[in-house]
């Protein structure tokens, strides 16, 4: 393991704001989780702060900033859900960096949207179905979920709910 040269650090520091996480970690956007880990280990051998601990103070500070962004990149890409949020952000030109909490929150929001429906009609019929369920009116609930599905035919949560409702009660 050898440390980075001052030249390499300065160069990296100049372009770091223009690199996306994949470019920063020098991996392909299609890389698997397992290979990402191995790639990160490889890059840590030259880029981790511990390896560069004997740098002079100025270089250390510059280097510190780089290493924090690298950790962030690894943090996002190793988590499939955060990575998905990030990929979507990249696709929509939403910036090269994403805050961990934002990546998490975006996903949670999407989850809840999916659960609650994405169209006004879908949401409404889901609400009706939920009312039916509270009254133990399973046929009514099935009908309303089916209606909701006509507006959102690809909503997996709706489909799942429908299947659960159709299953005969075990007790």
């Amino acid at each position, binding site marked *: *393991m*050898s*440390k980075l040269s001052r030249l390499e650090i300065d160069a990296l520091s100049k372009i770091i704001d223009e690199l996306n996480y994949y470019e920063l970690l020098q991996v392909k956007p299609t890389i698997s989780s397992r290979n990402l*880990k*191995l790639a990160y*280990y490889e890059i*840590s*051998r030259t880029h*981790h*702060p*511990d*390896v560069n*601990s*004997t740098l002079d103070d100025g270089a250390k500070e510059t280097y*510190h900033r780089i*290493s*924090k962004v690298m*950790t*962030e990149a*690894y*943090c996002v890409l190793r988590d499939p859900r955060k990575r998905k949020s990030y990929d979507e952000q990249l696709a929509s030109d939403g910036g090269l960096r994403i*805050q*961990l*909490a934002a990546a*998490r929150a975006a996903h949670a929001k999407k989850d809840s949207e999916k659960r609650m429906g994405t169209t006004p009609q879908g949401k409404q019929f889901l609400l009706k179905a939920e009312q039916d369920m509270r009254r133990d009116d399973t046929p009514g609930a099935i009908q309303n979920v089916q209606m909701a599905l006509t507006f959102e035919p690809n909503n997996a949560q709706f489909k799942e709910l429908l299947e659960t409702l159709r299953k005969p009660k075990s007790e």
Partner: protein
Amino acid sequence: MADMTIGIDLGTSNSCVSTMKDGKLEVLSNAFGENTTASVVAFHEDGSITVGNAARANIIHDPAHTVSSAKRLMGRYHFSEEARKAQAICAYEITEGANHSVRIRVREEDFSLPEISAMVLREMKQVAEARLNKKVTKAVITVPAYFNDNQRQATKDAGQIAGLEVLRILNEPTAAALAYGFGKGLDQKVAVYDLGGGTFDISILEIGQDIFEVLATCGDTFLGGDDFDDRILDMLADGFVAKEGINPRNDPYAFEKLKVAAEAAKKSLSVDDEVEIRIPDVLVGEDGETRSLEHTITAVAFGTLIQDLVQRTFKVCDEAMQQANVTVRDLDGIILVGGPTRLPIIRDAVTKYFQQEPKADVDPDEVVSIGAAIHAASLVSDTSDAVLLDVTPLDLCIGVAGGLCEPVIECNTPLPIEQSRKFSPFKDHQESVRLKVYQGGSRQAEENELLGQFEFSGFTPGLRSDISIDVSFEINADGIVNVIAKDPESGQEASTKITMSSGLSANEIESIMDRDRTADVQRTGPDAEVASDSMTDDMLIASYGMDNELELVSEDELNELSEDELEGIANEVENDPNAISMTDVADLNDTTLTLAIDDDPDGPAIGKVALKTVSVPPAPVTAPGADVDPDTTMTDYSTGDDGSPDELFDRSDSVNLMGDHNEE
């Protein structure tokens, strides 16, 4: 040639020091040939101090002047559960220092916890120097993985007071894994089960050749071998009460004898199935007759006695494995760390839980300091032989309205890391925003550890949607937290270490070190202590103007000062940079923010850092696209006529948080 470095395992009960020399690892034994030294400090009547096993022997004769298990109080507030507990069971006196810190009073002198730990660290340094016949200054010091920022900072301070350059604060289980896997070229997942005297940690690591990645770490800083001792002690004391009708807990000498006997009994149970406890002359009854204590305890009975504590460790293990996304089947090895893991009861329980035998070739008392020594050597060498990818053990959160808090950096996030957030005032026309930073796993702010408070003001009040303050939260490789605020207009940075308010300022550390240098290990009179105390009580404001000048005044004075006077102070401070060392301003340059630490007269604030723009005429802040959820905005603030912020909203919460503690 690289400098000589050491790794110190600063334990609750025992400490251990090792070094790596020419690739060879060595545990450095003390003058008595022992590889571990008791983390006990005895203060003698003649003013001298002894540290180590001799000091431990002193506990029975002189419990009020012998300090043990100080690590349990490191970085704790005086109002904390741990300090309360210590007050109940320790014979030495625990007092409250500045900013709700814990001080230990021995022979009419108050010592901070970092000072006590520094005495232990200095002893370990001397052990190393005697063994190596060389001066040693650079060290890696280990801490429980679950230590929070306050505790890490206190440990780092202790190292500095002891005259050490602390290369790194390293997590104990990570150090153990390094010692286990170093140079072996392993590809394994391992669990480190670290049961110390006062804390329990579990870390799950993946070792890929020379890379050691912590997948998850969990812990309990209120659970350790000392708790096993307490169970035995309670049994002995209750038995004695039942038999003799006298409570030995009320007699400090008898109580210490019981404590020592309990610990010895626990150690015997590491090898024997049964142990007979006999303490002649425990105490003298009111009738003048001396009483003795006799009790037999079997390993089985002991197992029952501590069963719930052992089960508690496995709950923590469940959590860690879940967070690391592994099952016991994925683990290639179990590493045991800490004296209590020598107990067959623990080994059996661990074997059963993990469905495999723990590694037998690891010495639970020495493995941590060996790992620290490996890392220390690696940090000063130009080529590194191993890389540690560690994580933060606790959520770093900010307080939000309603006494809740919201994580900015979640636990088990790899380090070093920086995340930023935008903050807006809670309502329109508010003049300042207060930010409270916590560490802990609870959504309830007050259940977490308060690291510090920050106050932002000086922006021109306006619609809350127009004002946005960018704050970055950084956790470095030591696990130590830094908060960096950006001026909303200039975007320039003003960084400040969250000053651990119940700990020591850099100023105090300096003054302690000065005192120690003049008096060597011998204690001095109270003069130096007074000087450092008055420093803490002072409200310090260090401000940076556009021209990079730096001013130091008390807050009361600030408003009264003329430009000329400010200038004068600036010059003064320039000549003595230590004068502003309460905040770490090394990184400050060319900024327009004022940093201040003060004592809130109402009590709740425990050292807050105020950031105010001073040298730039306030102008309306425009923050395009500032999208801030009202729930995440800060405690509301309004400004009184005198210009000092007067908290209106959420006040009850903040007063409760600290107020309760004050009363207790």
